[in-house]
């Protein structure tokens, strides 16, 4: 299995590594870069738990190879918090709405919403609901997430 040198700007810092070509971005983030906030839950692109932001786009890190992230900017859930420790508004809205229980799928949900707001600071509620349609959660019945979509729509806090 061939190995490749890659450099990824991960949460604002350059990370250099040698990875096998078959290594997924998700495994690279968790195993090589120590960013275990990204969770792998289906590893076939359905559940959305492993979503990270690559060059501004929400990406399933189980379906992207680490070598494909070479030279790109990757943001994981660990990179969302402000330097003063205050939560990103998506994180705050999630907490306020009790939108998580076990928290395993949560990082992916947060990243999808963060990417959606980055792409369009004033999304509609249906836009956000559409974005959330690609996430599976087994605990909450999505009740809190629906409230989050409503709250964040139109750029609301």
């Amino acid at each position: 299995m061939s190995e490749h040198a890659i450099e990824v700007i991960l949460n604002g810092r350059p990370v250099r590594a040698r990875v096998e070509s078959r290594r997924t971005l998700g495994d690279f983030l968790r195993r090589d870069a120590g960013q275990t906030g990204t969770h792998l839950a289906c590893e076939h692109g359905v559940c959305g738990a492993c979503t990270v932001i690559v060059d501004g786009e929400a990406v399933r890190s189980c379906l992207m190879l680490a070598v494909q992230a070479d030279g790109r900017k990757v943001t994981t859930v660990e990179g969302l918090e402000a330097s003063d420790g205050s939560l990103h508004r998506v994180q705050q809205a999630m907490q306020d709405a009790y939108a998580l229980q076990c928290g395993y799928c949560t990082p992916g949900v947060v990243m999808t919403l963060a990417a959606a707001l980055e792409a369009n600071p004033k999304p509609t509620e249906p836009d956000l609901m559409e974005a959330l349609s690609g996430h599976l959660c087994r605990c909450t019945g999505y009740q809190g997430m629906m409230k989050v979509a409503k709250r964040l729509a139109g750029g609301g806090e």
Partner: protein
Amino acid sequence: MNDVPNATRFVGQRIPRKEDRRLLTGHGAFTDDVPIAGALEACFVRSPIAKGRIVRVDAAAARQMPGVHAIYTVADFEPLNAVVAAAGGQGVNQPRMGLLAIDDVRFVGDPVAIVVADNRYLAEDAANAVLVDYESEDAVVTIAQARVGAPAHRELDNNLGVGARSADDDPELDALFAKAAHVVSHTINHRRLTHAPMEGRAVASVPTGAGELTVYVSCQSPQQMARFISEAFNLPNANVRAIAKDVGGAFGQKISPGREELSVIAASLMLRRPVKWAEDRLESLTCAYTGREQEAHFKMAFDADARILGGHIELHSNVGAYPAGIHANALVTTLFPGPYRVARNGFKSEVWYSNTTGLAAYRGPWAMESLARETLLDVAARQIGIAPEEIRARNLITREDQPYRMCTGPVLDHVTPRETLALALKKIDVAAFREEQAEARKKGRYIGLGMAVYVEPTTMATAGVLSSETAYVRIEPTGKVIAMMSTHSQGHGTETTMAQVIADSLGVPFADVSVVEGDSSRGGFGAGAGGSRQAVLGGGSARLACQKLLEKLKLVAAHVMNSQPEFLEVADGKISVRGEPEVFQTVKQIAQIAYLTPSRMPPGLELGLESQARYRPDTPIIFSNASHACTVEVDVETGLVKILRWVAVEDCGAIINPSVVEGQIAGGVVQGIGEVLMEDMAYDDLGNPRAATFKDYLTPTIHDVPLIEYDHLETPAKNEGGFKGVGEGGAIIGPPTLVNAIADALAPFGVELTQIPLSPDYLLKLLEGRTPAHAG
């Protein structure tokens, strides 16, 4: 007792969860998130056939592959003398079970060998290179096959795991049916489903030099895991430390370790190195414990006024090859009468082994009692020609009937089935809906209203490991409160709810209380999550421990303040003389004295501020109850069901945190929606699982569920704090509520819904060739 409403400051409030920040920022500690130096990774070689003999395992080439440390079959584990817990659990017709397959395989996915390598990629490479020859045999897959087919387990004579019936001959019940004006029968074939927690099973086993073992494991109670592991490997209990800080859902699947977790531990003991395994989704869906598969035939006898005379339920469960020591048929038959006046009830129950993945508890494992009874009541209402709310009104027990001894044994008390139903029906507005329904039918649109009422047996502290929970609470010299609890959260939020109870009980700020769970070396013996019991037993033990601690705090403070304990009150972390708030000592000041200044302590009093209490309520089963109602539209062209509204009126006694309670209800209801509309862990004729990815095993998405409307009644039971459990209820009452709504929508077609799930293809098959009766 029952003084919560008066003393409340944090209990009853929608307080944000302490768990959330770490989980929202990616700093949770799920099993596979824990960094372990030098950890190897495991992968299993699994059977591709449902039944057959293992002729040969050739791992020679695989052992030579890069990064491979070991490949073990069950024979290699012999030096460990591991004891694997019996599968059936009930002591009847137990199959032989090894950590891995012994010399035959009994379901697709049966683990045959474990490969340990530098990482999972290399372990999978090697697993694919292990050659296993099988001599395939005919598998039994369904209940029908299990009845007549060859034994799924070759050492057993047949497939009947456990059989039971109330009485072969019950003339009294027969007489009730004979004199009945109406006898209504119904059937439900409930197909298999699976828990599908977002985090699959995971374990990291770290042996240390001194014969000690630290096991990070995704589970429902680290205390119980440590116990299971120490028993399996003959290790002193104190040598095994099980840690589960964050767990990504369990729902009954992670009560006991599977053979895989035990095999990973065995491999780590053999290699004397840390070994970890986090199952992938294929393993989680096809090899982890499953739930529910049951065939139920049931009937009720009614008099001319539609009053229930008696009931009977016959139940067959397919528990697969190696079930997790549980089948809930006894509870199904016990609870079948529900909160209704039923004079006599009979049952027959049979549990069947098959060559499929084993069954375990799934959120409300006895839920068939509500699904059967509530769907039958709707069938009866249609047959007799009265409204579904009317047949319930004529039969539900009242407050005056309580305590009400069910004919099957349990005593119902402090429950509000009538009150919750009245509220639910008011909220959904039955009259307005019926008008809308009649109009819709004229236009060829089929909308329906469903309702269901149930009582939920929570706490389950009758005997065994569920009997009690414990809390060890201490005020540290810093004035902060630490509670070591035997409760455990897989999303339940007990770090928050238990802190609310403790803050109120001691009179300290919520922020000053930390609840420590998830580590068997800290929490005492307890069963953790399972049986909807943590609010009652965790909350109760926390309150008792705090009462003792508060007494001591006041003793010390009274001595320091030249007062008497009975004149003191504690609020917001300050101890003051009642009526003189300006004269106070802080909890921190008193705590420092208690630990650090013996000369200022009352003579003879032990230093420190520490307390422990173990709690079991006088009534070991605390019943909570609820009534739900929902409306749906069924597209008769596509078979798709759209849920329009969902009303949940729950009575779980004194509520600790309404948002947490609603989270439990919603999670259960939505699992119930998945159960009724889409979840189907199907097997083909050869026993191959037909759902291997989340594209085949469908669970609800955000677009499949309504925003649930809640109402709460708070009728306390006579236990410490007046709390009742609420964890499983949504998954119990959700399915009959939804099935009844769909049946109501399709009533003009005269179809009977006898399968779960009510998938679009099932509904279309039922509707094929049928035309609706004239809209009325």
